[in-house]
């Protein structure tokens, strides 16, 4: 694994963003792993620090990644919005990956003899919630891609109502309305009794 792009990155990332915006689809493929890596690294660092987690938001990570990866000022808001759009999506992946990793670690070989304090709860584990949310978001995207995007931007990317409206080129009222329906839809999906 290569070292985190501490210094070299900002210029590169900024250039990739500009390329992507001007139509270079391949730029996104190069951009994605950089952002993903950075988000992961930041998440890891947070894990090790003594900071009060209650105050940590996904938004904070996304923004910090932005500050580290992108040179001081991007030419326009649109490019920034692009970046955050990508980061929101990746943030979602980081979180879901993390949850999956932990679950499979639990199932793994050493687990049994560790169960000194194993308590099985009736309530589904927290991690399951996020996986369920992730699955539901994927189904929503198949039904109505824009609504799924709204949720991703708002909850994983920390977009405000007006930023979301700007990024998707719709009115704020539409964002509000669609977000509400999307939330109701997602909540309904994840509250269904699991059949597995």
């Amino acid at each position, binding site marked *: 694994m290569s070292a985190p792009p501490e210094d070299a990155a900002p210029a590169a990332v900024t250039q990739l963003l500009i390329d992507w915006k001007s139509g270079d689809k391949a730029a996104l493929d190069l951009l994605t792993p950089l952002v993903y890596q950075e988000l992961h690294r930041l998440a890891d660092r947070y894990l090790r620090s003594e900071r009060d987690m209650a105050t*940590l938001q996904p938004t904070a990570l996304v923004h910090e990644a932005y500050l580290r990866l992108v040179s001081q000022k991007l030419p326009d808001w649109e490019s920034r919005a692009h970046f955050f759009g990508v980061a929101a999506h990746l943030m979602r992946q980081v979180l879901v990956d*993390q949850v999956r990793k932990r679950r499979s670690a639990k199932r793994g070989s050493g687990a049994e003899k560790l169960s000194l304090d*194993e308590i099985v709860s009736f309530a589904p584990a927290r991690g399951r919630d996020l996986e369920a949310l992730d699955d539901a978001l994927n189904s929503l995207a198949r039904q109505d891609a824009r609504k799924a995007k709204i949720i991703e931007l708002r909850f994983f990317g920390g977009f405000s109502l007006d930023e979301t409206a700007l990024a998707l080129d719709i009115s704020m009222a539409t964002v509000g309305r669609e977000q509400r329906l999307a939330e109701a839809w997602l909540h309904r999906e*994840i509250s269904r009794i699991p059949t597995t």
Partner: protein
Amino acid sequence: MDPQRWQKVEALFNEALELPAPQRKAWLGRACAADLDLLNEVESLLDSDSQGAGEIIVSQVQHAVVALHTNEDSTVEGRRIGPYSLVRELGRGGMGAVYLASRADEQYESQVAIKLVKPGLDTEFILKRFRRERQILARLQHPNIARLLDGGTTPENVPYLVMEYIDGAWITKHAEALNLTTEDRLRLFLPVLSAVQYAHRNLIVHRDIKPGNILIDHAGAPKLLDFGISKLLLAETRESSETQSIGMLTPDYASPEQILGETIRIASDIYSLGAVLYELLSGSKPHQIDQITPLALQRAICTEETLPPSAAASRTNRALPKRLAGDPDIIILRAMQKDPDRRYESVEAFAEDIRRHLDHRPILARPDSLFYRIAKFTRRNRVAVAFGALAVGAMITGTIISVRQARLAQQRFDQVRKLATTIVFDVERSIRELPGSLSARQLLAKNGIEYLDNLARSSANDWELKRQLAGAYLRMGEVQGGSVNGNLGNPTAAQASLQRAQTLLDDVVKHDPANRDAQLERLMVVTRLSNIQRQTGARAASLATVELGLRDADALVARLPNDMEAVEFSVVFHLDRARLRQLASDLPGAANDTAAAQTLLKRMVAADPDRREVHSNLAAAYARMGAIQSQLGALDKAIANYRSGVAELEAQVVRFPDREHAKRELLLAYAHVGDVLGNPAFDNLGDTAGAIDAYRCMVALAEEVYRADTANARALSDLGIALLRLGSLLPDPEKRPVLARSVELLSVVVSRNPKDLASLTHKAWAESELAATYRAPAERGNARKGFEASIASAERALLLDPKDAMTQTRLIRSSLGLTQELLHLGDRPAALAVQEKIIAFTQTAPANPPAKSILAQQVIARAWEATGLIYAQIASMERGALRDSDRQTALAAHRKADAIFKNTAALPGFNGQHRRFMEANAKELAELEKLP
């Protein structure tokens, strides 16, 4: 779903949300016409929306972020906790993690296990459990129980336990690895029993016995670990709710009562020990559990017959079944009986049978007899009712057929009748508490009645039988629509059943007027009947029934003046009539009845000072009288009654310390005293200092209740409400922190349960009180935010109950506050927008409560008044024509308010508070009219 249909769903969803919540369903039904799928789709989305979908999703994302943090496996090494330094993680569970640690400040090697609460999950509940575990463990000193060495709190305030480190294998794995014989396994198990028995003698139930908690150390001795969810037996009887709320346990070894959330006792550990022994001897778990869902668990553990260990062993080993058949089967199945009363009565008896078996002496447990097997059919089905009434129905049909044959034989008549009443009464009582048992109960009552009817026809003059029949109808009525434990909501059928019971008992009483028991039963039927009538809105019928009951109860009291049960009925009827009269605005009549009930209750207290129900009825009578008198405007009398209530309840709290409810009633009584003495939100006596004193008592008590059980959401909400009342009356510098804490606590309550209407309404109130404290120029932003928060809370509360006048008023007052703040910032359009919203609101919302009621009218008047105030304020900031037109608008609004206020003056219930509102508006109006 195809895109067109999805668009339709979206459009309907959005349109429905424009409507007030209660109108949505009906509108949607019309809009979807015959398209049921569409209706279901949109309705389920609206339901989901109303459950706070957005917040739930946000919290899931939050949890995932927190979970990132807790994944810190590689970082623990070398971390210091007290004098210990962590070596590695041993395991983690629902509430914490266990680490291997060594004592850092000593020369010799000393390893311990340290248990820590999982970061990010340190809710009060878990902290409490942790502290309890520490206390419990500290009391246990037994060679087969892992010792508690130390305990404390990390600098981050995370409690930890230091325990003896047992480097060993699970008992089951140990036995397997060494390929122990059945005898060896039984001998290995005896010290485990001795450890649990020792804990039981110390009144401690383990609650979570499983192979993972029984480790075999290097010396080959079993050690019992983890009293994490055990609990003092003594405390058990007091707080039964917690046993049900925990819901964390290991299902393979959990007893049926644990699965059903019933009270856990010694017998539950005996079951779990049986389950562990089952696995230890047979190599199989006792149940095939493929899913951890409540339903699957109930089926596997509570309903399905446990396979004898010998049969389970046949899957794996050929010689074993023969070894286990006989004594081991009997011993294990005795320990694992579904009915706790049929298990070994103690761990000692369990151990004794194992010893007898090892010594080749006869064991004491017996296999189930044929008779017992038949009886068990009933019992098993009693549990099965949670899944459906069919089996129960079949059982009863069976008995009816056999009963019909038996009827021919007169000598068996009584015997059969006894069976029938057993089915109706005992079985019904025993399944009453089971969730989902309603249809089974109804079937039981129905079949029982059918059957008793048949018997009654064949012996018309059997008065005793008539009484029993009436009893069956009473049960039937309760199931159909009574007030006990959930009902089927068929009040018409319930009334018919109760009337049938009443007619039968009328006959019995006519035949034998001296039969006191029959008369009391009849009065019981009459109270139930009047309750159902009142609940269905048939108030006149209910009043007639109550008066009939009151007359008969008084006649009985006249005949048996010292029969306190008869007196109690008279009290109940008086209080019922008081309630009906209060509802019908006959306040003097209600006051008379309450006074009569108070007199009788004092007699009852004198006759038997130890009956706590009488005390609680007396406190309730004082509270009712206080409410009636304050509605009458007789505030002096109201305060006297509320104070008597406080005195009564203060005595009760001391006298019956385990009656938790008394503390809450006392809390309300303090609130009432303070409200009447000097809370400007209510009609009051103007004694602010007295009110503050009362509220201080309220806060102190609420604080005490909350400290005693920090997981109790109700206590948290009560504390928030108490702080609000105190804070709203305190003078300026003191009030802000009190109100801020109130808002904080109520926010926690509401975020846990978004449907808690009372907390939401009080939160809205507290937020606006807090907002009003920000008056300095630099703080105005806080004021605005506070009013906005209050409006949002009030709007959410109104979604839950659009009729609530207190919330409506709050919405109007907070909107007024917000508009004033907006005007202060010079944002006239925004201020007017808020104001327009309020006018629109008053035109639609208050149509919901009885529009003529004084509350509804006052809400409307105060909205107009608020409008007037706003426009007057705007006018003062404008010039010329704009100013004149604003002033005209203000005048019109105040006049409108004035007219409505004046109308309310003629309505019943108009009190000093209402008058003060009216006069305040009149004053504003006069000021405006004076201007050129």
